[in-house]
């Protein structure tokens, strides 16, 4: 059984709650980071010259398509990642245990 899940169940009630709050905060942080990197990516790929003050129609359309496509992509990778993440988790734990043993 997953030793970390066990660890979580062993936490006292208020610690469990604190952890749940920390997880929620990380989810918000994660989505703000994705939002930030999404603007960066679409700006980088769609906007190149700065002679006029506003985005032209082509650039606007490009930014819009870029954002929509990335969101679809992200949803798909999320599903695939759910299938892979228990594996990623166990490998990460191997790394952490190895590191702690090396101290």
């Amino acid at each position, binding site marked *: 059984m997953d030793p970390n899940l066990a660890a979580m169940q062993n936490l006292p009630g208020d610690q469990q709650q604190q952890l749940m709050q920390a997880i929620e905060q990380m989810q918000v942080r994660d989505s703000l980071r994705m939002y930030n990197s999404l603007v960066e990516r679409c*700006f980088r790929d769609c906007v190149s010259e*700065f002679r006029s003050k506003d985005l032209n129609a082509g650039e606007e359309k490009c930014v819009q398509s870029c954002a929509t496509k990335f969101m679809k992509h992200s949803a798909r990778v999320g599903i695939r990642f759910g299938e892979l993440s228990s594996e990623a988790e166990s490998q990460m734990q191997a790394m952490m245990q190895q590191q702690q043993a090396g101290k």
Partner: protein
Amino acid sequence: MSSGHHEEAATIAAAEQAMQIAFLQDFYQTVRDKCFDKCVTKPSSSLSSSEQQCLARCCDRYAEATQIVTKAVLDMSGLE
């Protein structure tokens, strides 16, 4: 008990505020770095007037692009 709940809500509000400030800092860093990459090419230590104009436009366009992305994200989420 009630005071405990109050305190907790306050802690969460403070955490959210801190997160928003962190986001604005990240956002500002990204604009700064991207617009420097896009506009500043000459090796001198001062900003030429064309570079300054490019920077101002770059910031404005970044803001515009942000609006479009926000709208696209909110539209997509509404469809789920």
